[in-house]
């Protein structure tokens, strides 16, 4: 087996197979700490606050939001796009990096995929509530109905329905198929009868037979091959919601690649936010090492730079197009009443990731953590800028308007943050955060002893 002389070990501390199992299963087997309960309590309260606000919206009507006739899409769609984007990093790590045979993904793919699923759940809530009558949400599916009508297959909003649902289902399948062997491990470790029964049911009767592994590997590879174009299609379709409209600032062909890059950019930031805390809290520093953080930071700088170039291209093209409305839209973005949102977006997404060219900063946990929060905020503002600043100056100055969210909209957003973190906190107590079986396959080529011996 070829062992690179310059690469850092991906697993530190000369671990045996059994130690790996033990280390990764430890957070599930041990008692939850005070911080975990506090985190869950906080997340659940945020979630219930959000639920109350959602209930209020449905009860009272969408008029409780700060939207008006000019600005029909505000925080709701901003949050939708933001959450979908965050999900993209999980699929990127689990599918695209698998196809590129990047071994470092084995330490982070499980938690990133889980994050994807929770993020899509949060995202899906927004269009649902924004309908105003969520009980009629099934109207978006093409089913034979008494009106004899079909849904509009020419509309990107409908493509979105299919893209997001497919994305959620395929991510769920991919995640669960990967989990089966590890649930088997948990089944064979836990002692309590109830837990053993539960893990036994969830493990689908996994035995570890060589034939099953052969199929499992094949399945993972093909699912990755399917998920890779899928993830690219999802945000391309989300961007088409805007790009096919004739609103200046939305009507651009650059949107699909620009949105996909931005999605992976923001997703990796969220993965870093979660994992920098998780690795410390669960004592997984030997598995999610500084080398992993650095690799992710390199992806952040690559995608962040693509996003930066996309912003510049947009500005250039709006000038070059010679279209007055187009030029005004971008000038107004940078210098109009929402200039501060544009400035936050530019600072967080274009300038701050460039600091990662310094190796010291790429490998600094504190810096990376702060930067990841910055990027999360910046990418949220990107969507806010695209949606609100493009809408608030309509063609007719008589329709010009301003938008301010109400507590209801803010509450719903806080609620989804609560839902997301509650799900993640429960996940780390139930399922192994790192793919145990997968990481054992790389320990021989990327363990500490092996990499040191050959260099």
């Amino acid at each position, binding site marked *: 087996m070829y062992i690179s002389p310059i690469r850092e070990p991906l697993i530190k501390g000369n671990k045996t197979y059994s130690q790996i*199992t033990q280390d990764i299963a430890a957070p599930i087997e041990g008692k939850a700490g005070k911080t975990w309960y506090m985190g869950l309590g906080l997340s659940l309260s945020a979630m219930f606050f959000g639920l109350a606000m959602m209930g209020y919206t449905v009860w009272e009507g969408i008029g409780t939001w700060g939207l008006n006739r000019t600005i029909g899409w505000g925080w709701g769609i901003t949050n939708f796009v933001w959450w979908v984007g965050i999900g993209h990093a999980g699929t990127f790590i689990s599918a695209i990096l698998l196809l590129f045979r990047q071994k470092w993904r084995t330490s982070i793919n499980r938690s990133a995929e889980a994050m994807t699923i929770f993020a899509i759940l949060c995202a899906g809530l927004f269009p649902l509530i924004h309908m105003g009558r969520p009980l009629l949400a099934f109207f978006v599916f093409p089913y034979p109905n008494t009106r004899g009508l079909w849904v509009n297959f020419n509309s990107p909003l409908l493509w979105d329905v299919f893209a997001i649902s497919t994305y959620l*289902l*395929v991510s769920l399948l991919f995640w669960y198929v990967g989990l089966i062997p590890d649930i*088997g491990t948990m089944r064979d470790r836990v002692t309590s009868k109830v837990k053993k029964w539960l893990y036994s049911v969830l493990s689908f009767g996994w*035995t570890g*037979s060589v034939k099953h592994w052969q199929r499992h590997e094949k399945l993972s590879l*093909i*699912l990755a091959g399917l998920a890779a174009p899928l993830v690219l299609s999802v945000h391309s*379709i989300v961007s088409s919601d805007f790009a096919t409209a004739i609103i200046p600032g939305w009507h651009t062909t650059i949107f699909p690649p620009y949105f996909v890059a931005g999605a992976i950019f923001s997703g990796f930031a969220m993965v870093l936010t979660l994992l920098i805390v998780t690795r410390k809290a669960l004592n997984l520093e030997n598995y999610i090492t500084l080398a992993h953080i650095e690799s992710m930071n390199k992806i952040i700088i690559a995608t962040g730079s693509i996003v930066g170039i996309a912003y510049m291209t947009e500005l250039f093209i709006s000038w070059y197009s010679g279209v007055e409305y187009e030029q005004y839209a971008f000038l107004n973005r940078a210098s109009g009443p929402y200039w501060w949102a544009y400035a936050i977006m530019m600072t967080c997404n274009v300038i701050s990731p460039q600091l990662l060219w310094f190796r010291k900063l790429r490998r600094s946990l504190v810096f990376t953590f702060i930067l990841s929060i910055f990027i999360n905020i910046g990418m949220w503002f990107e969507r806010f800028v695209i949606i609100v600043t493009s809408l608030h100056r309509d063609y007719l100055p008589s329709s010009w308007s301003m938008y301010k969210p109400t507590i209801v909209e803010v509450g719903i957003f806080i609620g989804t943050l609560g839902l997301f973190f509650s799900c993640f906190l429960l996940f780390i107590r139930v399922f192994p955060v790192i793919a145990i079986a997968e990481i054992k*396959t790389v320990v021989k080529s990327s363990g500490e002893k092996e990499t040191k011996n050959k260099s």
Partner: protein
Amino acid sequence: MRRYISAYFTDEENLLSASKILREKNISILDVLTPFPVHGLDRILGLKDSKLPTVGFIAGGIGTLFAFGFQTWTFVVDYPLFIGGKPHFAIPAFIPITFEITVLFAAFAMVFAFLFRSGLGLGAKNKIHDERITDDRFLIIIDADDKKYLFEEIKVILEQEAAHDIQLKENN
């Protein structure tokens, strides 16, 4: 009543070379249970390639035809509506949903085929040979009803490859 020999390894390299020797001597290996996928083991054991890709391809093809056909039928045949003066048979507009449904069908078909063919699923009661298999032990199960070799002979081969707990067991 079937008899089989079970032996444990702690390292996949030993498992690989032991399986190779056993296969060369034409001793039939019933199953190998490992905590993680050991690359190259399926080739040594002479396992056929998995047909899951074919399943995925066929199901994906059905998805493509179904999605494209359905959209065409609703918009061209069943209820042609004018939307912004656009053509009823709008091929490019049908592609995104066709793609999504293709992926959806292929993924579900492959996962169900995998579970079905491997006998895995909710409530599956497969025999768990040893709880260490999902941790750090590699278990090889050798057919002992094959009268070509005696138990002792196989044991010697296995011991040379650092196997332990070599036992002759009976299955009922």
